[in-house]
């Protein structure tokens, strides 16, 4: 019985195995003898896993070597080319057994692989001997796949009957107790109140309870005392931090791009959105929909758009010389995996290269799912805090008011504007778009992606300082002028037109060379007569990014033809209106006119990156288009492109908004309105800068999706339309099959795995292991749940309660199961090391962030502020510079209170993980993680012993203890102890710790250690100590606090 409980498997299975073991032990003399009658080999449990692991890849849905299939009962029994594979009751006569056992003279199966484990062979033998029972349900037909439990939508199961009904606090306990009773176990007693409150507090908010909170709970003798604590903690803003961090693991959140340059990215708005969404208990179905397609919701708010940052948490490779499409695909695969692991609980990524080997997902179906996500821009937008949003609204209102004032003061404005429009030059030059060939070498590792409208989109690494060379042969003649358009694009930061973080760019020089096409050697520079543009910025000297860097100026377009690389045409208005399409026209002094065609070479010099060439201030062009004309005196249309587009609409059909835009432009052209225009400009200058966020925005033109042969983007196969796999719930019938529909499909009530996956993972968060161990995979390869009906009950209950996460948490923490004591005998720990049977409370080390948070909270250093930019917590500088890091990274160590923010706010570089968090198993964000490892290593010990923050915590705890912990050392010890562990120390603990304290005091008195060094202060900068306290005392208490912070129990949930 002992081993049975230990393995946690059904009794019938054990008997079968016992039988097989027996056979194995007496093999070979007993070969052919009937297996012991008391046990049967079970196909689903014992045989199919062997087939799946070793046979199906060649004899399954994908390949049918020798026409044999072992995934289908009927096909397997018929056999393949060599004849019937299985003769029920006669193993020795069955080809299947002969071949896997290596009998006879034919090659042993699996062909070319290692032979099966001897016991697997023996199981197959016994199975055939016992009649090769293959249940119809398990693949009765090759086409009809048996419904795996997780692929059938959960329904509410009956509550099981239990003997000890008094133990059941809520239905969870009925399921748990029924299983325990079946195994002859009984629950552990309820944990004592202090342990329980510490467990609850660590679980719900990731912080230990304060002494006051513990005392209040102990003093509360109402029957609702525990529930009061549950509600207090569920209402805490730290709840969102605690559970948000776990979602961020699944969302592979980090603050950098990954790959070699691993540039920082500013995406903390997404992190804060997660925290806030959990705090306001946004229902899980909406939580998912907003993250997958918040941008597509009607009237999407900034928050809903920010939520799509979930999909954008993929890494980005900005290495020089990459093929951007390759890494866009890598990011797409990453998104699919994140959705599969984190939301669906299905290993869909396995079907990226081929049909899924175990689950009924074809490669086509994978790419049909992929197609839902494949139609978005990789956008970066400006986002504003609530305060900034208010300021922004006010400003926009003020601007409208100034415009209104203008209109009121000048009642004839409308007529005047109409006249202006009528008199506008409609006779614009005819331009011919040219798309010259780009010299790849000249782009400095950038990729120039040609688009259908003749423009180029710069992608991949930012090129820093470079001079793009582009060449074309044209028959147009004459050529009098050249136009360069800088265009917006959904894939550029803030929509472009440039590649700097704010979407701007600068053109240092614009040069053209021309030659007769039949005399390419006669390439000559084209001398430009003039340059005009639709923006005339005042010259601005840029601060060199590096000390002693060359001065750089941006300003009017003439600076692009002045022959000086230090000066450039800039298109930055200095405010939020900077992200406009722009154009410049360069007129040649002499028309170019060659009878047999012309060779043109364009050089676009971009050397205004300062020292931050690879980073955020690169000022590279983002999307550009070149045109030529034959007309004389061509100039840049001064009207912004957008205004010109509106004017092409019949006046009666223009919307008020469009008319407003025309007015806003027109007023700037009215000479006597300078004062008003300046007032408005001033208001724009006050516009909040905001911060950035990576999001998705749906493309207008559908991007085709192809099945990629072996997942290789260079080998596209047939095109597929968005669609969902046949084995899951159907897509809603009405409406377009787009990303939003996909999001709704994921959280449909009929989705069989979504709710189960979520409740399983929440359960894992409390008990260390899910009801299904593999929380990322509920598919056919997963182990049966330890409590299948409990899983289904929780999933249904969760959905019935409106997908409320707080409600689910409340349910779990108020169960008797959760409230059990984790005290157990070593034997009980051995028999059920992972507590699958839940006959005791959970006990394990807390998550990495919480390890740090506990030390900060116990010492009183912790800062409770929620949200905001990520902080550079203390870390050794060398990690962020060469040669440790590929490129130097910003790490301006936080000073003051930002040092002591919660671990969730520590800045995360993917290539240089924060050492303390990494050591305690925090994931790096390179891929989705729904199950952290839980290691216990010497490096962890070194960290809590010696890492500066832990030492600062020990010092702060000592000082606080001396100031507030009471008058004598017993009181003080209890105070410090309770700040770390919540409970009272035992007498033995008090004795041991006081002995340590005395010993240290003596050593300090003897001068072994400098008290000020240990206490962390210089004698000049000493803190105020309570009267009668010596530096040696402070030092000794620091040593004692350090011991407390290093206890296993301090960083464990009991």
């Amino acid at each position, binding site marked *: 019985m002992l081993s049975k409980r230990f393995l946690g498997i059904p009794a019938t299975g054990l008997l079968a195995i016992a039988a097989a073991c027996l056979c194995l032990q007496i093999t070979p003399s007993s070969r052919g003898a009937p297996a012991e009658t008391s046990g049967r080999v079970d196909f689903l449990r014992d045989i199919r896993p062997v087939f799946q692991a070793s046979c199906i890849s060649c004899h399954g849905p994908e390949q049918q070597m020798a026409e044999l299939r072992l995934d289908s009962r009927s096909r397997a029994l018929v056999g393949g080319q060599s004849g019937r594979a299985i003769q029920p009751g006669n193993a020795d006569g069955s080809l299947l057994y002969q071949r896997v056992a290596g009998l006879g003279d034919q090659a042993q199966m699996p062909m070319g692989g290692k032979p099966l484990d001897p016991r697997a062979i023996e199981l197959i033998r016994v199975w055939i001997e016992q009649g090769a029972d293959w249940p119809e349900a398990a693949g009765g037909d090759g086409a009809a796949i048996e419904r795996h439990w997780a692929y059938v939508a959960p329904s509410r199961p009956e509550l099981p009957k239990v003997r000890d009904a008094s133990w059941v606090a809520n239905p969870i306990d009925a399921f748990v107790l029924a299983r325990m009773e079946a195994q002859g176990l009984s629950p552990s007693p309820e944990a004592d109140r202090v342990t329980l409150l510490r467990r609850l507090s660590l679980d719900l908010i990731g912080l230990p309870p304060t002494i006051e909170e513990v005392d209040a709970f102990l003093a509360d003798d109402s029957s609702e005392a525990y529930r009061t604590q549950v509600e207090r903690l569920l209402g805490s803003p730290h709840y969102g931090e605690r559970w948000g961090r776990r979602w961020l693991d699944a969302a592979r959140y980090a603050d950098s791009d990954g790959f070699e340059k691993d540039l920082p990215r500013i995406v903390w708005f997404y992190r804060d959105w997660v925290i806030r969404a959990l705090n306001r208990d946004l229902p899980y179905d909406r939580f998912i929909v907003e993250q997958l397609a918040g941008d597509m919701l009607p009237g999407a708010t900034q928050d809903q758009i920010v939520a799509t940052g979930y999909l954008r948490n993929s890494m980005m490779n900005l290495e020089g010389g990459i093929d951007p499409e390759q890494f866009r695909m890598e990011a797409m695969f990453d998104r699919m995996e994140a959705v599969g692991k984190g939301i669906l609980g299905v*290993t869909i990524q396995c079907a990226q290269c081929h049909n899924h080997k175990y689950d009924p997902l074809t490669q086509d179906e994978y790419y049909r799912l992929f197609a839902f996500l494949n139609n978005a821009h990789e956008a970066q937008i400006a986002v504003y805090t609530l305060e900034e949003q208010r300021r922004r609204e006010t400003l926009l209102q003020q601007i409208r008011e100034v415009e209104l004032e203008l209109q009121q003061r000048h009642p004839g404005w409308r007529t005047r504007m109409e006249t202006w429009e009528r008199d506008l030059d409609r006779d614009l030059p005819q331009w011919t778009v040219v798309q010259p060939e780009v010299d790849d070498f000249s782009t400095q590792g950038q990729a120039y992606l040609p688009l259908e409208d003749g423009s180029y989109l710069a992608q991949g690494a930012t090129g820093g300082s470079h001079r793009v060379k582009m060449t074309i042969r044209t028959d147009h003649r004459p050529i009098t002028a050249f136009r360069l358009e800088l265009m917006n694009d959904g894939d550029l930061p803030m929509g472009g037109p440039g590649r700097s973080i704010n979407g701007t760019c600068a053109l240092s020089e614009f040069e053209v060379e021309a030659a007769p096409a039949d005399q390419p050697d006669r390439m000559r520079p084209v001398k430009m007569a003039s340059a005009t543009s639709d923006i005339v910025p005042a010259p601005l000297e840029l601060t060199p990014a590096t000390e002693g860097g060359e001065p750089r100026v941006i300003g009017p377009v003439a600076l692009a033809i002045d022959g000086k690389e230090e000066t450039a045409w800039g298109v930055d208005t200095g405010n939020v209106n900077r992200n406009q399409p722009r154009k410049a026209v360069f007129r040649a002094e002499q028309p170019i006119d060659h009878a047999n065609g012309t060779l043109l070479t364009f050089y676009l010099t971009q050397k205004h990156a300062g020292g931050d060439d690879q980073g955020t201030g690169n000022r590279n062009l983002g999307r550009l288009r070149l045109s030529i004309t034959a007309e004389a005196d061509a100039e840049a249309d001064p009207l912004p492109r957008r205004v010109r587009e509106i004017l092409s609409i019949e006046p009666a059909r223009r919307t008020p908004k469009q008319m407003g835009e025309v007015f806003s432009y027109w007023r700037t052209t009215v000479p006597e309105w300078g004062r008003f225009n300046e007032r408005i400009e001033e208001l724009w200058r006050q516009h909040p800068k905001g911060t950035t966020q990576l999001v998705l925005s749906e493309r207008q033109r559908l991007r085709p999706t192809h099945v990629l042969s072996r997942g290789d983007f260079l080998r596209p196969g047939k095109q597929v339309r968005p669609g969902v796999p046949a084995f899951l719930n159907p897509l809603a019938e009405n409406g377009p099959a787009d990303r939003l529909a996909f999001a709704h499909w994921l959280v449909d009530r009929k989705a069989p795995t979504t709710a189960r996956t979520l409740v399983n993972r929440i359960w894992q968060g409390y008990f260390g292991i899910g009801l299904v161990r593999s929380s990322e995979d509920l598919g056919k390869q997963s182990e049966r749940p330890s409590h299948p009906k409990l899983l289904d009950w929780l999933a249904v209950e969760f959905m019935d309660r409106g997908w409320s996460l707080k409600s689910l948490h409340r349910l779990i923490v108020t169960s008797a199961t959760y409230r059990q004591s984790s005290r157990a005998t070593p034997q009980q720990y051995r028999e059920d090391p992972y507590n699958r049977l839940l006959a005791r409370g959970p006990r394990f080390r807390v998550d990495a962030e919480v390890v740090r948070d506990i030390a900060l909270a116990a010492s009183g250093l912790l800062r409770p502020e929620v949200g905001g930019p990520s902080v550079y917590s203390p870390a050794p500088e060398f990690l962020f510079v060469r040669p440790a890091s590929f490129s130097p990274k910003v790490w301006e160590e936080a000073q003051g209170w930002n040092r002591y923010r919660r671990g969730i706010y520590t800045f995360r570089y993917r290539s240089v993980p924060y050492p303390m968090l990494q050591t305690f198993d925090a994931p790096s964000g390179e891929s989705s993680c729904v199950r952290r490892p839980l290691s216990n290593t010497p490096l962890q010990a070194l960290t809590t012993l010696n890492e500066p923050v832990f030492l600062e915590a020990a010092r702060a705890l000592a000082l606080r203890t001396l100031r507030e912990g009471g008058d004598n050392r017993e009181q003080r010890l209890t105070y410090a102890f309770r700040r770390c562990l919540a409970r009272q120390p035992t007498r033995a603990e008090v004795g041991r710790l006081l002995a340590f304290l005395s010993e240290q005091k003596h050593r300090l008195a003897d001068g072994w250690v400098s008290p000020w060094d240990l206490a962390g202060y210089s004698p000049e900068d000493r803190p105020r100590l309570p009267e009668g306290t010596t530096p040696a005392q402070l030092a000794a208490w620091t040593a004692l606090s350090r011991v407390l912070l290093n206890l296993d129990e301090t960083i464990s949930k009991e």
Partner: protein
Amino acid sequence: MSDQHRTGITDPHEISRRWFLAQCGVGLGSVALGHLLGETGLAAAGQQRSDPLAPKAPHYAPKAKNVIFLFMAGAPSHLELLDHKPQLTRFDGTMPPAELLEGYRAAFIDPHSTLLGPKFKYSRHGQCGAEISEVLPHLGSVADDIAIVKSMTTDAFNHAPGQILMNTGSQQFGRPSLGSWVTYGLGSESRDLPAFVVFSSGSKGPSGGNACWGSGFLPTVHQGVTFRSAGEPVLYLSNPKGVDSGLQKASLDAVRDLNRMRLQAIGDPEISTRINSFEMAFRMQSSVPDLMDISKEPQSILDLYGAEPGKSSYANNCLLARRLVERGVRFVQLFHESWDQHADLTNRIQTNCRDTDRPSAALLKDLKQRGLLDETLVLWGGEFGRTPMVQGPETDGRDHHPNAFAVWLAGGGIRPGTTLGETDELGFNVVQDKVHVHDLHATILHLLGFDHTRLTHRFQGRDFRLTDVHGNVVKQLLA
């Protein structure tokens, strides 16, 4: 632990679980039971309930016990170092044949660029007559101890993916590194040092970052631990200011005693693991500084490597690698990122060789004279090769080239004095005895006693391995 061959348990997780069960006296019956049931390891649950670094035996008798991987990050030019191409000299300045370039993708250059002749002379070395470039004279002096593979090939032509592939067997992040697979399979022989140690030298960190020595989905304990040859050798190794060794010892004693009291009260065996972790941490605090102190090495040894105590250099790291292996560290990896010669190749390769040639050869000589080379596999190489075409204009650079590159191996069951494989006359494609990165990995695991198809870890519903579904042991390299 040789009894695993009797029980047929090959998954190291099974072994560690078995060890755990044996320790805890549950008995063999239930082990066999669990195995037959296909219960893939309680140890796989993500919780560590046994010592994952306990020494384990591989599948069969190994040739090598330890590995030192000298990773030349940035991708050294095979054409200037190990793959002699006299015809390339002849064709210098001409265009490569168009058919060669069909479907070829380059990172930076237009593949239709002129060929660049090799910049250095080659000569034959040792009894075996291996052809080695003049910039590697010290490697030449150990030519009879090494095996050169001129026919390496890879799938990636950008640095980060290429380095990740070379170090984890996959271009995608998130897979365990070679070193972590090895410690996962073999455990550790050292009680007071990590099993997998990483050094970095050169101009910057490797493009692949920490993922080059990450543990992926294996337990975190298999992750490489970075050491530095100058400054604090391991993060947070030193006692903080004001804490002397007496206080540290007293503090650890107090922590241990309180943890023991808690163990008594609660019964969770994880507490005893924590006690052990603190003990090893304390041992590391004295063993690591002792290990890192190369000033006690005789001058002749320092000279051999060109090592200088107190400096941070590749030479010092090579000497430290030997000292680590001597102390039972399983896998030592040196990253030297400085080989990305898109320009100024002649000068910069000379500089790199001045920094690395002597120490690399010294490491082999030193291991050999101590009788350690037989059981230590040494491997030198980068993530891909360089184009035979020039990356110009007006300078001598070469672009990334995945089709062909060269590495060398020594010791640990490698057949010494071998040169394997051939590229075409331009050094563009492999024409004989192609060795893919997966094959190299299969061979390394083979030398350590593993069938690379059987060293697996179950994750997300399937068994993962270093070589995925690829890899063949390169028999010609085996002694």
